[in-house]
């Protein structure tokens, strides 16, 4: 069960959680293309940075109830690692993996933050 303040927090931060997931996935995808010899589309990095900034701004302005503090800390840590991965010269894989671990920890800390949306998958259907 969650109280009203926590529910408000969950609803406010869900989009930022999704944004951080998207940035992590996008950076990982670009890295795969680089490593496999394909020519990645670098303008996508601009999009990733824009989504990242939106998420961080939102997270910093969110009112955090005490029982969501741990969750919020995981999101901030994920964002911090993504910031490192967004640096042009950085080795992206390690901070990316750390950011994903933080997102997974956030996913486990409160309901409403799934790492993977099965409802839109083709081979799993909601009962």
């Amino acid at each position, binding site marked *: 069960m969650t109280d009203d303040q926590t529910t408000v927090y969950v609803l406010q931060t869900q*989009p930022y959680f*999704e*944004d951080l*997931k*998207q940035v*992590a*996935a*996008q950076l*990982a*995808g*670009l*890295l*795969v*293309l680089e*490593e*496999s*010899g*394909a020519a*990645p*589309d670098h303008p*996508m990095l601009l*999009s*990733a940075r824009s989504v990242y900034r939106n998420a961080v701004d939102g997270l910093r302005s969110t009112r955090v109830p005490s029982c969501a503090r741990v969750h919020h800390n995981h999101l901030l840590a994920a964002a911090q690692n993504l910031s490192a991965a967004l640096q042009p010269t950085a080795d992206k*894989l390690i901070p*990316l*993996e750390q950011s*994903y671990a933080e997102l*997974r920890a956030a996913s486990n800390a409160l309901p409403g933050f*799934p*790492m*993977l*949306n*099965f*409802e*839109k*998958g*083709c*081979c*799993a*259907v*909601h*009962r």
Partner: protein
Amino acid sequence: MKNSYSVWICEFANVPTYPLSGLIYGAHNQGTVRLPYCYVVIKGQGHIAMVDVGYNHKEYGATLANLYGVRDWHPPRQVLAEIGIAPEDVTRIFLTHAHFDHMGNIEDFPRATFYIQERELSKWVWAMSLERRFRWIMGGVDPADIMRTVALARDHRLVAVNGDREDVLPGIDLHAAPDTHTWGSMYVRLRNDLSPNSKNTWIFAGDLVYMQENLRGYLKEDPEYIPIGFAMGSQFNLLMTTEDLVKGVDGDVNRVIAIHEDRLKDMFPSRLAANGVRVTELALADGEPSRVT
């Protein structure tokens, strides 16, 4: 018939009641069918290859079981043991597409080299750059899989294939099926006599077809193609690819293997092990003992 490879279909989980409309386009309100989750194992010519590797039970097993009714999951080590193989023995893995239930178990195969269409990767990356309102597109894709793929690439165990590629192993061809089930789907064609004009071919279709009905319609005497219920690309492209699949096996639709088809066990020799793992045997190379008798 000379077989250069042995081939098994290994079922690692199932959904007891899956809506038929998800599998056959337009089959609304026609009830449900049992949906098996399988991967293909191909053994011969000094290699053990697989088509797809299943989903990551460690991360998603509980969710899939509780919310989506997926059950009877078995780990690759347990499944492959039924055909005398360990995950470490697998040398090549062909990923038909990047959905979680086909590429989630990458980490379980530490010595394999993985093949996927470059288009599958590049278009997913592009899709991630779209606005949030397009998020439906990313359904079924697990960012963690992409993360694991980076590690594969760094370990020089990822081959991004651009279009068709013949003889990726002797007698095994990869065929691109762009803009169908996904943007960069591919299927695997096995010429089991190794001949360029083989009369002993199998096609492993990934999710390009789910059931026999996709290949022949509802009336055997008046066949038609009916696309699957889920296309990121177009139904038209799925139909034209279905034509390629059927031509690729000289019209013998039983040799187009849909790994979600529950009736495979009735079409070919099959065995249900005591632990619940089902193995279906399509072909045996010379000297290879049957795993189903």
